[in-house]
Each structure stands twice: as C-alpha cells, then as structure tokens.
C-alpha cells in the first residue's frame, strides 16, 4: 500500500535531542531544519520572480492605460477641430453674405434661394435653409424645403441670443419643422438703427457621419451634448438624440480633457471631452476601459498562470530537494550516533571482558590454594586413616571442595565469556552456546521462578560463526524477554533446522508482548518503549546489526498480553570472514 503516510520523510517524527548542542550525541530538530530550509530557499527563489511579475503587472497596466488616455485625447481634439471648423466655416459664410448683400437683396426669395444653392454647392453639405428675419422676429423671406415664411421667432432662445451677441450658433432643437437641426444666425444693423437677422439651418447628419466613422475601439462612443447634457447627435450607447445622457456634464475646460470615470453599472470608463468654442456644444468620446484593456488582461492572465505554474514547480523542487538533503543528513547523523553507541557498547563489553578475566585469574589462584589445602586435609584424613571415621570432618572438607569446584566453574565461565568477546570464527553447538548464555541468568530465573525450556532436535548440525556475537545476540534477546515477563513466566528456546543451509532459533516468552505500532519500529536505533526506565533504545538495534554481521536474519512476532517470539535464522557457515572481523573493536 502506498499511501500519503509513506511520503512522510523518515526524520519527520524524530524531534529528539539526545544531548546538549555541541555534544557528539546531539541530534538536530530535523523538522525545524526542514521548515527553515524550505522557507528560506522559497523566499530567495520566489521573491524576485513574484516581485518582477507584480512590477510588470502594474507597469504594463499603467502604460496601456496612459496610451489609451493619450489616444482618446488625440481623437477628441482632432474631432473637435473638424466640428469647430465646420461650424466656423458656415458662420463665416453667413457673415460674408450678410455684409455683402443689402437687406433688399436678402428679402428677395428668389435671390435667397440662389444664395442657398450657392452655399450648398460651395460647402458641400449642412445648409438646409436660409431665412431673413426682421427685428420683430418675423421671417420675412425664406428659402428652403419647410415653408417657414412669416414664422415668428421672437420668443425663440436662439433669436434672443443673436440679438444679444450679434452672431450665434444654437444647440440642436426640433423647431417648427420638427426635425433636429441647429441654427447659425448673424445680426446686421441697419443705418436706420434697426437690425435684421440672417439665419441658416444646419442639418446634423454631417456630425453624425463624422462621429460614426471614427474608429474608437473598446466599445467606444462619440457624441455631442449641449451644456445641459442633452444629446445633440446620435449615440451608440448613451441614448437617442435630444435625450439626456446618464453621465454627468463635464466641468468646463478650454482644453481637451480625458478622465477615468464610472458608467451606470459602475463599469470603468475613459471619458474624453472638449467644449466646442463659440457654441453650446460639447464633444464627448466615451470608451469602455475593460474592453480596451482586454488584450492586457489576457496577457496578465497568462503571466499569472505562468507565475502559478512556476511557483508550484519551484516549490515542488525545493520541497523535494530539501527533504532529500535533510533525510540524508538525518540518516548520516543517525548512523554516526549508532556507530558511536556501538563503539561505546563494544568498549564496555571489552572492559567487562578484561575485568572478568582479571577477576577470574585473581580468584583462581587463591581458589587453587584452597583446593589443594582442603584436598590435602581430606587426603590426610582418608589416606592416613586417622580421622577417616569422622564423617562430620570429611563432610566439612567435601563441602569446602564442592564450593571451590563451584567457584571454579564461575571463574571458568567468566574467562570463557571474556575470551568470546574477541571476534573469531569457530565451530559451535547452538544448544551448548544457548545453555552457556542461560547460565548467566540462571540465578535470576531461579529467584523469579521463571521456567526455562530449551528444545533442540537431535540432528542440529554445528555451525561456524562468531561465538562472541552470537552470545551477545542471545543475551540481549533473553534479557529483553526477562524484562517483559512477570515472575513465574515461561521462556522457551527452540532450535530447528531451516532447509539444508540454515538453522533457526526461536526464543519465545509469555511476557507483556509488543503492540503492532511498536513492532514495526522495534529494530530502529533509539526507539524504546522503556523511556524513563533506563532504556536507550539501542539493545535490539545492536542485536539486529550483530545478526546481520553473522549473516543471519532476525524477525519478531508478538501479541500484546500473550508474549513475544524472536526468530533468528543463521547460516551453517559464514560466506566471508568479514562477518567475524566487521567489529574488531570488540576484542
């Protein structure tokens, strides 16, 4: 099964500090190192990337916005110039006509028609009709298609304005003809002190043609309003002619202005406008900012996707690399510590061996003297027949001699133990070796009423291996079993053949057992369930290594509350001498 849990690095749960910082046994807080390394590397790698992307995002947006503002401003100015020129040209023509012709000429409808036709021919478009109006507002002469002869204009706003200003261009209105148009009127004073007005109606189609032909982009709309916000031309999106637009009327300015504003729905707009001089007209060009910025938005989206993909890839690589490196450091550290502990263990065992040999020898000599002296006493009693009848004395001497024999056995065992700590391959009988190891724990078993049973098949062959390592393996496992068992427990050692090339030793106790969770990690260094009770978590780890050094395998089965069985499989013969020499430090 390959779950997420398997992705968890092996150092993840190891936040141990076995010793003070600086000590050779110090283990780092790997999770923190991992987090710090990822954080630092990510900042160093991602900050410039994100920074540059943000700068690019911001500046390209600003640059494009400025470009569109400038372009809109240019269009507004150019269009305003065209409209202004159109009106100025026609106003100038009227002024010329009014000054070049007498009132009599202008009152003559035939002549007025002729002038209108000439104007139409000369200026190409815009002029609809001409009217000559007396100072009382009555149109005395009219040339045009609407039959407006004798119409009274004295109450019309444009008539009042022209009387006041002399020349006037009106905004668009329907008038008597009920057709949208605007009026250019010129006042001429008579020598008698009165005045008359020459009025020309201008169609709005030229404006509409001009405005509709502008290439604006971004759902742009160009139109003309008057100072009250009433549409003076067609508009694509802001209403029909003579309707009031929803946008606010711009603040007066002599120059072209382009500003950012909001539409009815709150959509961002670029609004360009220009007041057309000497008219009540305002040219406006309105563009949808979002539409204009669409290409940039697309580019920005691509940049953001690229950024996200890059960040993901960089983070994945950083996490992968840092995990790999920290795992390497952790493994190396753990191996270093393991070796340190193995050396310490080996040195300890070597010291114990030396001490055992020394003690055994020191005791052996006085024991030998006691043995000989007691033997001599017995000889004197038995051989010379002097005290041979005294059974009590003979019994006492026998007791001394049997104690000497027992002490002699202990010293011999100690010497054998010390000798076996030296690494060397020899032929051994497994049952004998196990019984030797058990003899060290014999007294404890007796005191705690632990029943020990060794079962070996008759055809178990001898094996060639490192006796010292094997004894340490058995001693560690049996010691663990003793620790797990209650008083009165039972320890069973079985020796069986496993195929033709191996033997198998099963050491089973009926102790408290090991949980499944602990069972998976039981051979890991520093893993101990006896924390706080003197356990270093190295016993079984060392046992595991020693088993591999003698080319064996060790497995464990356990059930909580029922007991534990360790199974050690050993080859009949080591394939290399390295198994024995791998740890010369033991000698």
């Amino acid at each position: 099964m390959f779950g997420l849990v398997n992705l968890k690095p092996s150092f993840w749960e190891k936040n141990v500090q076995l010793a003070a910082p600086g000590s050779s046994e110090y283990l780092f807080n790997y999770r923190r190192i991992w987090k710090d390394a990822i954080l630092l590397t990510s900042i160093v790698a991602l900050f410039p990337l994100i920074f540059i992307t943000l700068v690019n995002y911001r500046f390209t947006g600003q640059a494009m916005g400025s470009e569109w503002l400038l372009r809109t401003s240019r269009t507004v100015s150019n269009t305003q110039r065209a409209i202004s020129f159109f009106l100025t040209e026609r106003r100038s023509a009227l002024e010329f006509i009014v000054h070049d012709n007498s009132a009599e000429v202008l009152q003559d409808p035939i002549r007025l028609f002729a002038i209108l036709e000439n104007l139409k021919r000369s200026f190409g478009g815009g002029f609809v009709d001409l009217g000559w109006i007396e100072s009382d507002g009555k149109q005395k002469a009219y040339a045009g298609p609407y039959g407006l002869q004798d119409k009274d204009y004295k109450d019309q706003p444009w008539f009042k304005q022209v009387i006041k200003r002399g020349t006037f261009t009106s905004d668009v209105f329907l008038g008597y003809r009920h057709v949208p148009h605007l009026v250019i009127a010129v006042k001429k004073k008579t020598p008698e002190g009165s005045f008359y007005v020459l009025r020309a109606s201008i169609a709005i189609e030229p404006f509409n043609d001009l405005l509709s032909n502008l290439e604006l982009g971004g759902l742009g709309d160009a139109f003309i309003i008057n100072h009250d916000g009433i549409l003076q031309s067609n508009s694509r999106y802001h209403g029909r002619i003579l309707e009031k637009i929803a946008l606010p009327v711009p603040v007066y300015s002599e120059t072209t202005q382009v500003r950012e504003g909001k539409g009815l729905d709150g959509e961002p707009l670029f609004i360009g406008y220009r007041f057309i001089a000497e008219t009540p007209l305002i040219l406006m060009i309105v563009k949808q900012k979002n539409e204009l910025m669409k290409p940039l938005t697309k580019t920005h989206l691509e940049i953001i996707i690229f950024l996200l993909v890059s960040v993901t890839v960089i983070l994945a690589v950083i996490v992968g690399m840092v995990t790999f490196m920290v795992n390497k450091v952790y493994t190396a550290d753990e191996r270093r510590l393991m070796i340190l502990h193995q050396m310490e263990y080996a040195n300890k065992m070597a010291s114990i061996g030396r001490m055992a040999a020394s003690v055994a020898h020191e005791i052996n000599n006085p024991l030998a003297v006691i043995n000989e002296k007691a033997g001599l006493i017995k000889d004197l009693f038995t051989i010379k027949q002097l005290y041979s009848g005294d059974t009590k004395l003979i019994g006492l001497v026998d007791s001394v001699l049997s104690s000497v024999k027992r002490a002699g056995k202990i010293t011999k065992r100690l010497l054998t133990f010390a000798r076996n700590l030296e690494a060397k391959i020899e032929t051994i009988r497994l049952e004998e070796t196990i019984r030797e190891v058990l003899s060290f724990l014999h007294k404890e078993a007796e005191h705690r009423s632990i029943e020990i049973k060794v079962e070996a098949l008759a055809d178990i062959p001898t094996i060639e291996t490192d006796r010292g390592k094997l004894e340490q393996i058995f001693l560690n496992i049996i010691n663990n079993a003793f620790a797990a068992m209650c008083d009165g427990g039972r320890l069973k050692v079985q020796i069986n053949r496993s195929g033709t090339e191996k033997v198998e030793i099963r050491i089973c106790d009926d102790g408290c057992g090991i949980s499944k969770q602990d069972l998976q990690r039981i051979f890991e260094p520093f893993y101990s369930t006896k924390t706080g009770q003197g356990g270093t978590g190295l016993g079984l780890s060392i046992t595991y290594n020693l088993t591999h050094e003698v080319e064996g395998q060790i497995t464990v089965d356990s059930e909580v509350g029922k007991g534990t069985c360790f199974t050690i499989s050993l080859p009949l013969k080591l394939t290399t001498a390295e198994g024995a020499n791998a740890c010369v430090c033991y000698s």
Partner: protein
Amino acid sequence: MRVLLVDDEEELVSALAERLLLRDIDAEWFTTGTDALQRVESGCFDLAVLDMKMPKISGLALREKLHAKCPAMKFIFLTGYGSEKDFASATAKVGTADYLVKPVDIEVLLGRMHELLNSERGVK
C-alpha cells in the same frame, strides 16, 4: 613415578606435592624455574607439572629448557588464565602437551599423569 612440580605459588605447589606423596608418587616442588633447572642437573624426572605464568621464566620457556636436558620428560601445564581451549592454542606451538585449568581436581591430574606416561601423547 618421579614428578617435578614448579609453581610460583608456594602454598599451592607444596600442598600438591604432599598430596602426591601421600599417593606414593615421588614429587619434588620448586617455586622458580631456575631452582627446578638446577635440580634437573642432578637427575631427570618422568613428568613435570608446570605453572604457565611464572616470574622470570614462564612455563613454556621452562619446558623448552627441561626438554633440552631431559628429552624423555613429559609435561602437564597448569594455568589460571583463560580456558583450556586458549591454552591448547598456545601449547600447539611446541607440540602436544597436557594442560589443566586451576583449581585442579587431584583425581583429574592423576588421570592425566597416568595417561601421559602410559601413552605416546607426551612430548619427548
């Protein structure tokens, strides 16, 4: 049977000699190799029981010298160090010999002495 006993532990070697004497074995004891060699000048023994570890001259070195003077003499070594197996590897250098780890059972010692004298195992 004439037996030479050499051990730097006087209490041990004297008691052992006396026990052998009680069993009608002609045993003489010495606490140094030098004294033992001097004694051999005046006549050889059938068998020598030597402590392995002695000051000045070790059991193995003494055996060399005794063997040079009395080639027929046979040897049993005693040791307080290590096991009989260790001892076997050490004595293998000079050929077969018998050995016992202290403390020694007198009956075992006697058995070995008889075995050596009645067989071809001893060093000649």
